[in-house]
């Protein structure tokens, strides 16, 4: 094919260990490329299959949420695509006369908002202190947190319930009660952000201290401006968690429907026999919860990745 006497493409690789320049023959290169193509194709096939598996439940959920309630009922069915598409379920949810859904949504939003502020402050205080300050009892605090973390969380549910009840923060007071519980011990989750503080050079503090800054000023003016990624990570985590809490939220708010969070309300629709034909409404409610959180998460994904990777590497 080649009329011109082309110089064959040669891949030259420097092998430091051998100390020689080696040359890879063009045939070998071609087969390598074919190999590469083949393995890439396999990977694409796997990735496409995985994407389908990972997205399928959510797509199905969305399909179900758009099923016509009037024509196909609200129960579970054995087919995927609705025969009639409609907004029946969403319309039903948005009418406060039908259910407390909007109220639950609002409750959860309030809880998430407060938690993201208070928890972030707690976690930052603890992680900053344990990372950058040295004082008597520091090691003791860290070991205590380690030991406490080994007790299963639901063990103390009944005690927390009655503690909250003493403060009047159950049933009708469930919203502030849940905020209190979520935040009170949140300082124990200092690990990831401590890992972050550990990576900031010590010289930053020291030079500022030499210039006469107090520790508070160092914290506020030198360190805080550098903590944006970890602050955003912490806020994101604190904001997302309350949306999924069923167990404790139902335990604190039982018997007071207007004070449920959205997880408790929706969970009951599919798991309490009193609610017949609520499945598609559950799906619609689930979509309404998932969409904003997913969007928020996607926007802040970068920070999430930094947080979990940092956390994993530093334990």
């Amino acid at each position, binding site marked *: 094919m080649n009329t011109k006497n082309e110089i064959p493409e040669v891949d030259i690789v420097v092998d430091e260990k051998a100390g020689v320049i080696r040359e890879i023959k063009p045939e070998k290169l071609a087969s390598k490329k074919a190999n590469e193509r083949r393995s890439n194709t396999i990977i694409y096939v796997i990735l496409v299959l995985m994407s389908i598996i990972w997205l399928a439940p959510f797509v199905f959920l969305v399909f179900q949420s758009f099923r016509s309630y009037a024509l196909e009922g*609200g129960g579970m069915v054995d087919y995927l695509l609705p025969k009639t598409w409609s907004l029946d379920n969403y319309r039903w949810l948005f009418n406060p006369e039908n259910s407390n859904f909007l109220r639950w949504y609002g409750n959860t939003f309030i809880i998430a908002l407060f938690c993201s502020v208070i928890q972030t402050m707690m976690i930052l205080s603890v992680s900053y202190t344990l990372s950058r300050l040295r004082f008597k009892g520091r090691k003791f605090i860290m070991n205590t947190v380690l030991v406490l973390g080994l007790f299963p969380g639901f063990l103390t549910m009944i005690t927390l319930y009655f503690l909250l009840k003493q403060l009047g923060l*159950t049933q009708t007071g469930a919203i502030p009660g849940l905020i209190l519980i979520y935040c009170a011990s949140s300082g124990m989750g200092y690990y990831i952000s401590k890992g972050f503080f550990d990576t900031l050079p010590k010289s930053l503090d020291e030079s500022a201290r030499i210039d006469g800054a107090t520790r508070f000023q160092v914290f506020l003016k030198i360190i805080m401006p550098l903590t944006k990624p970890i602050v955003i990570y912490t806020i994101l985590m604190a904001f997302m968690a309350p949306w999924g809490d069923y167990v404790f939220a139902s*335990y604190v708010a039982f018997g007071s429907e207007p004070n449920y969070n959205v997880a408790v309300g929706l969970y009951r629709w599919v798991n309490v*026999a009193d609610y*017949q034909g609520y499945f598609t409404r559950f799906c619609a409610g689930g979509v309404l919860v998932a969409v904003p959180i997913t969007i928020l998460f996607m926007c802040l994904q970068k920070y999430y990745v930094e947080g979990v990777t940092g956390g994993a590497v530093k334990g």
Partner: protein
Amino acid sequence: MKKVLSVVLALAMLLSLASVAMADYSGDLKIWVAEATVEFTQKMVDQFKAAHPEYANMNVIIEPVGEGDAASNIITDVEAGADIFGFAQDQLSRLVAAGALLDVEPENAEIVKAENDAGSVAAVTLGDTMYAYPMTSDNGYFLYYDKSIVTDPSTLEQVLADCDAAGKKFYMEINSGWYQTAFFFGAGCELTFDSDDSGALVAMNAGYASDAGVKALKSMIKVAQSPAFVNGSSVSNATNLCAIVDGTWDATAAKEAFGDNYAASKLPTVDGYQMGGFGGFKMLGVKPQTDDDKLAACDALAAYLTSEEVQLARYNAVGWGPSNLNAQKNEAVQADEALSALASQLAFCEPQGQYPGEYWGLATSLGDDVIAKKYDNADDAALLEVLKNFEATCEGYLAK
């Protein structure tokens, strides 16, 4: 004539109630009822207040807490629980044992005894003490089916064959201690418990470990092996419904699901015997009160909410079958398809007595083993061993 009579009776009862409770009460009073009856209960409470000026200022809060949740919630924290709450019969002994139920006011108890069917009266009574007001006598189960597919609902074998031929499913929650008795009681076994006044179960009468028991267990295994069988008892969770063993509370959902082909009948026969089961009841309870005036208000309101008038109205609003004898004679009640299926099934049922809380868990274990096909290859002796084990475990639940 009947109507006039019932109005007179209702009035007479109201008067008698009023004479019991003249103390007025204007504080809070919390009620838990099933989601479906919240609106209805609100209406009834308004009527009650209108008829009782001394309670006109009472602040009644009605929350939807299902019969299943009510008992566990109120046991967790009696104080935060409702003053009056609806629950199904299987919870009664548990509630009494936890100190979460107050005995029925003696005069009301006499009225309840006179006006409600015997089964329901027995169901609210532990030893000699009455602990709750019977509300419905419809807590039993029977067969809903699609009459275009199921040709003959009189034998379970035929029902299963028809469902399978149409590629559809037969639903029955055989891993529930409640539905399971359809097999055991039907085959002629017995399982009852005797309780003392405090709600403690002191003796067991059991016949599961017998030839009849083995026969029943084999029927269960056979049903579980059928390709048409699915374990479940909720119409709206069933995806490919052809027939289901379920109760009146799902009547509306079943009517919607089957449309024109909706039909209901007593349970079929299986392996030549008529399936039996529980005839159960729903009731209203009052929790222990520390305030005499509030207590009087609770007594009066609970009695009203289970009176003939309200039971009938409840049937008309949500289709719950009354336990009140007069209400049961009502024409509409008698004509109801689901209720008459239930009534013909109840002829083969035992009125549900008291069972230890652990019984339900044990029965689920047995059912799960059957569904997991653990006994598919077991011989009669092995099955008898399983049932002996079942009985022995039940006996272990008796109060020591």
